[in-house]
């Protein structure tokens, strides 16, 4: 489902083309504006925001809001800045991404190359789990995390994201391996290669692209999650999105918009970076999650 490069054979007149370019440029502006303005205003002193024009470039360029958002801004009750929460999110996301990808790869391998009676039903069950509203699992999950004594901790969140990531990673690898020639697997089997040997020697070496898709998509989802973070993390263990929301929506004191903007961009930076560096795989992940082809 990669976006191919063959354009349509439709021919258009000059005026139509001018209109099309205008339309596309206006929408580019629409998509760029909110984030762009946020970036510009994160580099202004507060007085220029409350008293001035949001489109204007800073008269007084300053990185003070960024320093404040990173290390001294008040988050909840502690003036720690966002740094500890940024680290929380990294510590949470990396293991959850790796674990769910490994399990998804193995599941996808079994579901395509070692099908057995009932394996399609199992895949259906896994697939449906991708689309449940997570509100339905919040209450029992809170109980289980309490019973396991990891409520309100980062390991608890790793578990949650791992568990609810399996469905998607399995879907990615299943669809990818479905296109992988089964004859190769059978031939290796006849030569005496075992289950894990085939996976390790034959499947994995050609899985680069789908591993990238799975890593990127899981990372984006887990980093951007708010519901689980807000429900299952407390105080100092909160992930970045929850801390950002606390910063922006805290009702006490002067609203330091420029600090909020700097914080929002910090929260967006890792996933944006991934998108810029590996946008191709990002789009593939989107497609694999929607059109199962």
């Amino acid at each position: 489902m990669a976006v191919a490069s063959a354009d349509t054979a439709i021919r258009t007149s000059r005026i139509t083309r001018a209109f099309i370019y205008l339309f596309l440029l206006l929408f580019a502006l629409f998509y760029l504006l909110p984030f762009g303005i946020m970036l510009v205003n994160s580099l202004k002193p507060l007085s220029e925001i409350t008293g001035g024009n949001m489109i204007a470039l800073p008269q007084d360029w300053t990185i003070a809001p960024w320093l404040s958002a990173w290390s001294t801004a008040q988050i909840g009750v502690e003036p720690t800045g966002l740094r500890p929460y940024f680290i929380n999110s990294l510590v949470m996301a990396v293991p959850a991404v790796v674990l769910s990808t490994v399990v998804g790869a193995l599941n996808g391998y079994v579901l395509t190359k070692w099908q057995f009676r009932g394996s399609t039903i199992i895949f259906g069950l896994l697939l449906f789990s991708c689309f449940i509203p997570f509100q339905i699992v919040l209450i029992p999950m809170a109980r289980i995390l309490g019973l396991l004594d990891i409520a309100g901790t980062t390991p608890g969140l790793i578990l949650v994201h791992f568990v609810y990531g399996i469905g998607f990673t399995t879907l990615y690898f299943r669809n990818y391996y479905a296109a992988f020639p089964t004859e190769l697997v059978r031939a290796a089997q006849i030569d005496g290669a075992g289950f894990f040997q085939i996976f390790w020697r034959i499947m994995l070496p050609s899985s680069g692209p789908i591993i990238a898709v799975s890593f990127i998509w899981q990372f984006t989802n887990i980093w951007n999650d708010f519901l689980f973070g807000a429900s299952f993390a407390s105080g100092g263990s909160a992930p970045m999105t929850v801390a950002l929301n606390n910063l922006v929506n805290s009702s006490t004191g002067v609203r330091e918009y420029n600090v909020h903007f700097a914080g929002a961009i910090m929260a967006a930076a890792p996933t944006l970076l991934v998108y810029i560096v590996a946008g191709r795989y990002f789009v593939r992940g989107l497609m694999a999650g929607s059109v199962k082809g």
Partner: protein
Amino acid sequence: MAASTDTGVDLRTRLQTWLPKLVLSPSLAIMLVFVYGFIAFTIYLSFTDSRMLPSFGWVGWDNYDRLFRIREWNTAITNLAVFATLYIGISTLIGLSLAIFLDQKIRGEGVLRPIFLYPMALSFIVTGTAWKWFLDPAIGLENTMHLWGWESFTFNWIKDREMAIYTVVIAAVWQSSGFVMAMFLAGLRGIDNEILKAAQIDGASNWNLYRRIILPQLRPAFLSAFVILSHLAIKSYDLVIALTGGGPGNATALPATFMYSYTFTRNQMGIGAASAVIMLMTIAAIMVPYLYAELKEKK
């Protein structure tokens, strides 16, 4: 000697046939507990008198009965209907238009496409922060228009109980319409150009080409876009929290925010569970037929 090798081989083959099931079983167990077990537990709780903590006094349909008499819940489902309709409709329209236009051998497509799509990489909390401020009359768009000399310009929907839900639509469309564009673009690029050329030779106008040949072929993309967007709409939580906090008052409450506040801040877990069950049923009504059809086609 020969016999022992035999059982050795036998054991090995038997292990090989069991291994795939063995590898899959932890995932299956996790799913059965953390997804289906949890769903069953929440459904059960929705029939109990649970308040701050789960308790097991059976109350029958009481919670559902009370749920639909709570004004905030009715606000939430009305909002969801308005939000989902506009969000799906506008995102599809914008996504389709952008895809069709981008498909006309556009110079700079490589630059435009990532611009249209990047909001999808952002957290809804970031999107909410950006738009909350952009729409704030005191410092955002309205103020800027005033500074530019357009004194009569007003845009204060975010502060207006009647209009606030539409600001959620704007921000949500901003976030996901590029994604819809990518889906349609992939569909458009999969259409065979030979058919189009043949129809052109027969004298079909561009309008007719799209209406008669291209759009009907995009049916799968329409279906996927609808399914994905409706599922996102029903789950919407973060965006409302970051953009309006459910306010003003509870004018922008959605089922997801309702569920959270009744379960965790108002200690009405039974009612919270009932609302979660309704959400699940709504999504299941859309997803199950879709997934069933997708899986069946594969065979």
